[in-house]
């Protein structure tokens, strides 16, 4: 693409070529062409369609459970895709591909992180109490380095002497994984009997920590208050003074922010810090209170040096319950519409998005779905998925679909059939007609008259059927015999699609009757073709010429009435001709007419005699 800048009204003699011309390199949206991502698109398409079609549960709780399940399905699809991408990254030898895959893996993992948080805060809308537990799970799921460290420590001979030992214990405590922390600590206690007393107290404290699961909020708060005071007492008594590690753990248990901040490298992210902070100072935090803690956590964690990254702003917007902001930020940060389209659709089903209309009339959900589906249509193969997305956009979906579907290249008949089926199911008659016409025209040019006819039957296109019949008739006139008899003999009810086609079928029938020597029936048919005006005027001469052998038969076939009719037809024909073609009369034509007149006259004579005789006897 070249952009040219034009100078308006060049006054000086400076040549216009000095205007900056930029060349844009047009690049396909790479994402949809990645093979591994195609699985994501297909599986999520299945989930999307299932969500639109499933019946709404009446009870709010059941509905909520249903939507959470859908959200989990989406997430498992993202995770599966991440796995595949990861496998692809490991197994490839091309370094460019490797980096491309690795980038995709990190993007997918960020997407899953955001989706998970949205599920907790918006879809499930966890209340105070369970909220913290969900957030703990969320954090545990997404900080993966822990597992490597843990494995390393546990597999060593002497875990408690391992240099990472206290790191692992700390991280367990920071993530609220008390049982695992206690398990590790017991190893230390065994190895180091002097600290047995301290260990026992710490172990006891950790065991007694209340985690809001089954109790009510007030019960939980009460228990927690007691526990907090007990920890406070032990710290102030200097119980852990001799072991700095255990002391810092106790401080963490008390929710001392500085102590927690010391473990910055272990937590790696500000949202981990946020959750840990909440766990140890406000375990009964309410959803609406999150925003305050979130903002302060981010400030404390990041300090002065670093500014928030896009992921951070998105998560912050989520904590602040600013749905539109989340969607907006995600749209800006991510390179294709997949994520925002599906997430917005899910949130819309949770009835969380107010339908504030964008200024061209559709709402945000529809806008995003339309964008995503349009992107799918630009792919040579994924267009079939796009159809279902358009179907579920009530305002503009149909129009978009109509425009897109006509532009799909149809290189085989089978693909055309699939596209046609899509159009027919949605009553898009214009598109059906246009596609059938294209296919019929192609078939006609390739001389596949049967195919052309079958396409025009599908579209109920009388005009095209007429065109095809004319082709057949032309062939007959040129060659004197019919091509493709298997088609014409077996037209069936489709004969009635167009007059010309009916004529063709009947004309062939005439020939068949003649061949079977059923002359009187053939004669009747021939006459009917002319008098009922089924035959086109241009063909009358041929029909009359066909009548000649019947007239010349030894046995009289045409009755007097019929002969008069034939004569009338001939006169009509020649009268019309005389006016127009006086000076261009073919010798052959005039001879034909002469012969016909003669034959008709002779037949008339014979038939009058015959009929007169019969009446007499």
């Amino acid at each position, binding site marked *: 693409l070249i952009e040219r800048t034009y100078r308006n009204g060049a006054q000086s003699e400076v040549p216009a070529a000095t205007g900056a011309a930029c060349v844009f390199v047009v690049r396909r949206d790479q994402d949809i062409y990645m093979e591994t991502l*195609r*699985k994501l698109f297909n599986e999520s398409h299945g989930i999307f369609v299932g969500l639109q079609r499933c019946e709404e549960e009446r009870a709010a709780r059941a509905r909520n459970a249903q939507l959470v399940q859908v959200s989990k399905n989406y997430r498992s699809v993202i995770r599966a895709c991440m796995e595949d991408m990861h496998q692809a990254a490991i197994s490839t030898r091309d370094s460019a591909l490797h980096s491309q895959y690795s980038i995709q893996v990190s993007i997918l993992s960020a997407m899953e992180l955001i989706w998970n948080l949205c599920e907790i805060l918006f879809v499930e809308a966890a209340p105070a109490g369970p909220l913290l537990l969900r957030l703990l799970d969320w954090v545990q799921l997404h900080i993966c380095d822990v597992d490597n460290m843990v494995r390393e420590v546990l597999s060593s001979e002497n875990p408690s002497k391992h240099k990472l030992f206290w790191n692992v214990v700390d991280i367990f405590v920071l993530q609220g994984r008390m049982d695992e922390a206690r398990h590790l600590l017991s190893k230390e206690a065994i190895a180091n009997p002097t600290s047995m007393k301290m260990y026992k107290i710490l172990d006891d404290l950790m065991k007694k920590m209340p985690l809001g699961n089954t109790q009510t909020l007030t019960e939980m708060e009460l228990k927690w208050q007691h526990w907090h005071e007990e920890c406070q007492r032990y710290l102030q008594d200097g119980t852990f003074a001799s072991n700095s590690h255990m002391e810092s753990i106790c401080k963490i248990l008390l929710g001392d922010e500085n102590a927690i901040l010391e473990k910055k490298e272990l937590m790696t992210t500000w949202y981990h810090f946020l959750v840990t902070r909440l766990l140890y100072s406000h375990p009964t935090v309410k959803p609406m209170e999150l925003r305050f803690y979130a903002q302060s956590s981010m400030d404390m964690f990041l300090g002065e040096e670093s500014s928030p990254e896009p992921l951070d702003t998105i998560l912050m917007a989520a904590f602040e319950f600013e749905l539109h902001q989340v969607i907006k930020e995600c749209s800006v940060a991510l390179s294709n519409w997949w994520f925002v389209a599906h997430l917005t659709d899910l949130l819309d089903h949770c009835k969380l998005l107010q339908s504030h209309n964008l200024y061209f009339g559709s709402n945000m959900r529809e806008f995003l779905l339309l964008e995503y589906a349009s992107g799918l249509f630009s792919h040579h193969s994924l267009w079939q*998925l796009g159809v279902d997305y358009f179907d579920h956009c009530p305002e503009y979906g149909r129009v978009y679909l109509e425009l897109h579907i006509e532009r799909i290249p149809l*290189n085989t008949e089978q693909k055309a059939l699939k596209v046609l089926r899509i159009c027919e199911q949605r009553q898009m008659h214009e598109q059906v007609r246009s596609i059938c016409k294209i296919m019929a025209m*192609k078939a006609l040019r390739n001389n596949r*008259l049967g195919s052309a006819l079958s396409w025009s039957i599908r579209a109920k296109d009388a005009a095209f059927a007429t065109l095809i019949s004319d082709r057949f008739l032309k062939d007959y006139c040129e060659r004197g015999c019919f091509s493709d008899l298997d088609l014409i003999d077996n037209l*069936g009810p489709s004969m009635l699609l167009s007059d010309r086609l009916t004529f063709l079928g009947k004309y062939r029938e005439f020939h068949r009757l003649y061949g079977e020597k059923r002359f009187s029936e053939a004669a009747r048919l021939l006459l009917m073709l002319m008098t009922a005006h089924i035959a086109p005027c241009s063909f009358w001469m041929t029909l009359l010429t066909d009548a000649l052998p019947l007239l010349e038969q030894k046995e009289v076939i045409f009755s007097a009435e019929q002969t008069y009719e034939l004569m009338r037809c001939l006169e009509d024909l020649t009268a019309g001709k005389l006016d127009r073609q006086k000076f261009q009369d073919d010798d052959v034509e005039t001879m034909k007419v002469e012969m016909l007149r003669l034959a008709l006259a002779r037949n008339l004579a014979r038939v009058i005699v015959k009929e007169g005789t019969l009446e007499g006897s």
Partner: protein
Amino acid sequence: MEEVCARFVSQKISKARWRPLPGAALQPPDLFATGSWDNEDNRVSVWSVGDAGSAGLNGEYQGEPQLLCDIRHDGDVMDMQFLDQERIVVASSTGSVTVFRHHQNNQTLSANHRWENAHYHADQYTACGGAACTGVICNNPEIVTVGEDGRINLFRADQKEAVRTIDNADSSTLHAVTFLRTTEILTVNSIGQLKIWDFRQQRNEPAQIFSLTGDRVPLHCVDRHPSQQHIVATGGQDGMLSIWDIRQGTMPVSLLNAHEAEMWEVHFHPSNPDHLFTCSEDGSLWHWDTSTDVSEKPSFLHQGGRSTAYISHSTINQSVVSAWLSNDPTKDRMEITNLIPNQTLSVNTLDVLGPCLVYGTDAEAIYVNRQLFA
């Protein structure tokens, strides 16, 4: 429902075929081939399904198909058939027919032989686009192909040129072909005709033509009963399943209203011919069961996902022994099951052998069911 393993493969599947079992083998098939369509880079792939009881190498979901090898294919895969244990014949939308060989020792595929212009439109200068080869059927060593150009070709696996070509055999597109006897084939076309061609005859005319009654709806697939060779099933564009008796009459014996959209494939089960399978553009795959002990089962015991329908055959000819042709009211009960619980996109292909069923969809997934009659 029975165990079905799904696998998303990032390509729309147009054909899937089980590798035939050698001789009187008793074990179920373990290998199948698939072809893709509508990709810029289409592939013919060979997959294996492991033993249902063992876990995969990396602890993957057992029974999930594993890709053994694949090879690039020029054009959409329109039809595919195993010629023998190692060779696969593939029909392409470019009009060429290729024989691939699957090397078992190093698990690779290679193109063995290709007939480049098996199907083309006569006048190359005014031709508008190529002619796809739409159907292929094999009876080692003979291969018969049909295409959009209305041409029928008879090839031999080892010969470069076609043994016999019938030009302009049909004025419309031939959609599918199958063997009736060793020297006779059946074709179906897009104006609703079923034709028998006899290769022993020298003239290029069909030996017999059958037509649908009523509207000449295009027929897309055809299959012959494995043991009673006069019974033929075809599937049409309106989803209707027609059963024909080719010994008598020129019209179908029964018309069964089946799917809501084009029926892409119909298969009689090769060893249990009382069972018939059809798949369609509307995303469903139906299992038709006319085995005689069905009539004993009371209908209210059927679980979800199954529907027992009482089909009224519009029979035209009185017929004989087979359940497919009979019109005995007590035996008229046919059990029809939709094997797909959540249908979305078209099921393009299916193949059935022994207790195993494989089918592929436009949602870029392959499904394998290894306990069909459990």
